[in-house]
């Protein structure tokens, strides 16, 4: 019991359970999963389905953050990737041609990789600070998406494309399968192969890593590229889900949700240790929170406050400093201290 309490992910997991309970109270059959038209159907499935792009983006973000960086441009990459693939598909004679859709997907992902590499080069090569380097692409990427889509919402009508974000395979939403695959791949690269160690080392102390012979630049370019790739896939999912690409709104604010998911999952923004499982948990909390807001009928004006409230609670519970203060009485009494010094003002 005590070991569970101490576990890094105990508190976020608790919050997730509470959120789900709240939903169960408000919505009958929230947890029930049915079979409909040969695929699984239910609120829980929805959470995974709509959460899939966020989980993907957050996975990429986790590695970036672990190197001590941050990527604000993922939202724009989501938009660019969706816009490019939809543009390509909309230009096909036969939108249902699998080859054409694959080409579109390949093209969009290739562009994402290029964008990610650009981020990585600005950070590792030119030495621009990550927030700023990716802020540039965040701004430019929206412009690029608008340019690609010519300021319009591009609508496509392609069954194979629809599969990516809205379809099902073996009764499961296709998006969920993609997430599982990317998660497995990431876990393999970082935990089976040595990428994780190198990333954590670069994030923990870049200079020491350099002196240990690590090619930090390569590692950094790699994680930004990976993050952009994840964002590119997420962009395909989002645009496929609604069969259209909206250069202005697709992926808006997703970078903040992703950063939040990473932090809720226990990865520190100052770099170093990261937790993929934690990130997935964090993303699920955020998605469940959104679903909760819709299903328990929080009025639109207070939606933001409600969201902020839950996030605050999770973050406070995640903070050791706060826990130490809040739960002090439970533990052994500690030596009392003179309170005098506390009140003195900061010399100004």
């Amino acid at each position, binding site marked *: 019991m005590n070991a569970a309490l101490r576990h890094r992910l105990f508190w976020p997991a608790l919050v997730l359970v509470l959120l789900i309970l709240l939903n169960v109270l408000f919505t009958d059959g929230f947890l029930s999963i049915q079979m409909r038209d040969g695929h699984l159907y239910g609120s829980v499935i929805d959470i995974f389905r709509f959460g899939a792009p966020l989980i993907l983006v957050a996975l990429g973000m986790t590695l970036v953050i672990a190197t001590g960086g941050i990527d604000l441009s993922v939202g724009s990459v989501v938009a660019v990737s969706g816009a490019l693939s939809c543009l390509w598909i909309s230009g096909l004679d036969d939108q249902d041609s699998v080859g054409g859709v694959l080409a579109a997907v390949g093209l969009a992902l290739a562009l994402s990789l290029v964008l990610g590499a650009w981020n990585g080069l600005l950070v590792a090569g030119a030495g621009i600070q990550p927030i700023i380097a990716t802020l540039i692409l965040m701004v430019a990427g929206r412009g690029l998406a608008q340019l690609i889509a010519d300021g319009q919402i591009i609508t496509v009508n392609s069954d194979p494309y629809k599969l990516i974000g809205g379809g099902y395979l073996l009764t499961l939403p296709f998006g969920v399968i993609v997430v599982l695959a990317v998660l497995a791949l990431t876990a393999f690269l970082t935990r089976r192969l*040595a990428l994780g*160690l190198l990333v*954590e*080392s670069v994030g*923990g102390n870049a200079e020491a*890593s350099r002196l240990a012979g690590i*090619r930090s630049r390569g590692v950094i370019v790699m994680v930004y590229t990976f993050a952009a790739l994840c964002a590119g896939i997420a962009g395909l999912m989002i645009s496929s889900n609604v069969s259209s690409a909206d250069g202005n709104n697709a992926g808006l604010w997703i970078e903040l949700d992703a950063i939040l998911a990473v932090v809720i999952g226990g990865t520190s923004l100052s770099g*170093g240790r990261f937790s993929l499982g934690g990130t997935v948990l964090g993303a699920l909390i955020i998605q469940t929170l959104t679903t909760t807001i819709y299903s328990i009928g929080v009025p639109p004006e207070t939606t933001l406050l409600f969201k902020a409230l839950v996030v605050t609670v999770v973050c406070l519970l995640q903070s050791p400093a706060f826990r130490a203060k809040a739960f002090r009485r439970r533990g052994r009494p*500690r030596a009392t201290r*003179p309170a005098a010094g506390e009140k003195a003002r900061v010399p100004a």
Partner: protein
Amino acid sequence: MAAPDPILRVSGICKQFPGVNALTDVDFRLLPGEVHALMGENGAGKSTLIKVLTGVHDVDAGEIELAGTRVAFAGPLEAQRAGISTVYQEVNLCANLSVAENIFIGREPRRLGRIRWKEMRRRAAELLARLELDADVSAPLAACSPAVQQMVAIARAVAVDARVLILDEPTSSLDAGEVAQLFRVMRRLKEQGIAILFVSHFLDQVYEISDRMTILRDGRLVGEYLTAELSQVELVGKMIGKELADLERLDGKPKEPNEAAVPVVEARGLGRAGAVEPFTLAIHEAEVVGLAGLLGSGRTEVARLLFGADRADTGEVVIDGTPVPLRTPRAATGHRIAFCSENRRTEGLIADLTVRENIILALQAARGWSRPVPRRRQDELVEKYVRALKINPPDPDHLVKNLSGGNQQKVLLARWLIVEPRLLILDEPTRGIDVGAKAEIQRLVAELSDGGMAVLFISAELEEVLRLSHRVAVLRDRRLVAELPNDADLTTDVLMRTIASGARS
């Protein structure tokens, strides 16, 4: 002798960290007007005791009395206000601030609330002058070598009117002259009735300066002794808990390496503007080359150039007879050159990783991300070196940041030993390491070089340099001024004079 009342007295102190009992029921007292040495092996709990005393850590049990009244400081600030001035073990300053700002931060000279910048610089320069330190007080601290940073930390501590001065391993990165200067200051303070707590692994220094000592072992009190009444051998015995037979087994001079060998690495006219003048230096197989010089003489810079940590702008590095470009550390490790940096915190360890991960890091880096070191091999290697270097606690999954300073140094050493380099560059590898472990490391270096490894050995301790090196290169004002074979004529005195004058006299 009528001992005055202790200014500081602690009793029954206990302090636990997750998985470690750092202090168990420790009593300790400090008298005014004495220099009191706190002795113990790496990880014995010295730094922890100091941090507990000054409110950095809470105590789990026990009492602290300052001048007869019970205290419990909420933080270093309160301790400082109460008259306890402390230099913590690792240089803990703000690298981005200037030297003067570092000395006076928190108590800047002011008039009507406004900082008097000129006054501050003047007083900082005055203080440094008293420590005979020649440094630009408005330069950013980051531009100073660790030794200068250490002196600045000391200057900061002695600048206040304190009743108690605590110095945790202040001398580990100082050279002999600076140590002497520091001791002069300490004696003066002692005469003024200030109580000084002093930690060092240099036994000679402890015997030179201290009046009394308290010995810790594994977080427990061994006892309190008058320095005059305890011999060095007894002291070491009490510290490590057994009689020390083979500590000084390494005799005076190293064995001769076989001649005729080709240099493993040769620097030809290697130099970097602003760092070191072009120098030429060859290091052969099975040879230990020592680097001697005053602090700031450029020893670290030589090492960094040979490792590609900085780029040379003149000259070349020749390995096995072929010139190779060494632009990055990665290139150097590719040629099996290893560099154990003197600044383990900022340039060595990854604090948040475990002992195991830190040890295999260089090996893994050489293999690239796609070829992980198999777990079994990791376990073997890590266990071997944890045992060989007596890393304590011997738990490979312990976070490195929670190790004591000396044990951190050993982890860094282990990292480079497992890559089996051809040239091993050691910059102050014995800094902050206890006597037992120091002998261990010295023996290891000798063994490695016997086994054919070339070693470049940098240390502020001339005895150590003499004991290990086949040749000694002397640096002065960032210029290589002499290369002396370590023959019978070479003594510390000769070496000192060469360093001072720039030529062998």
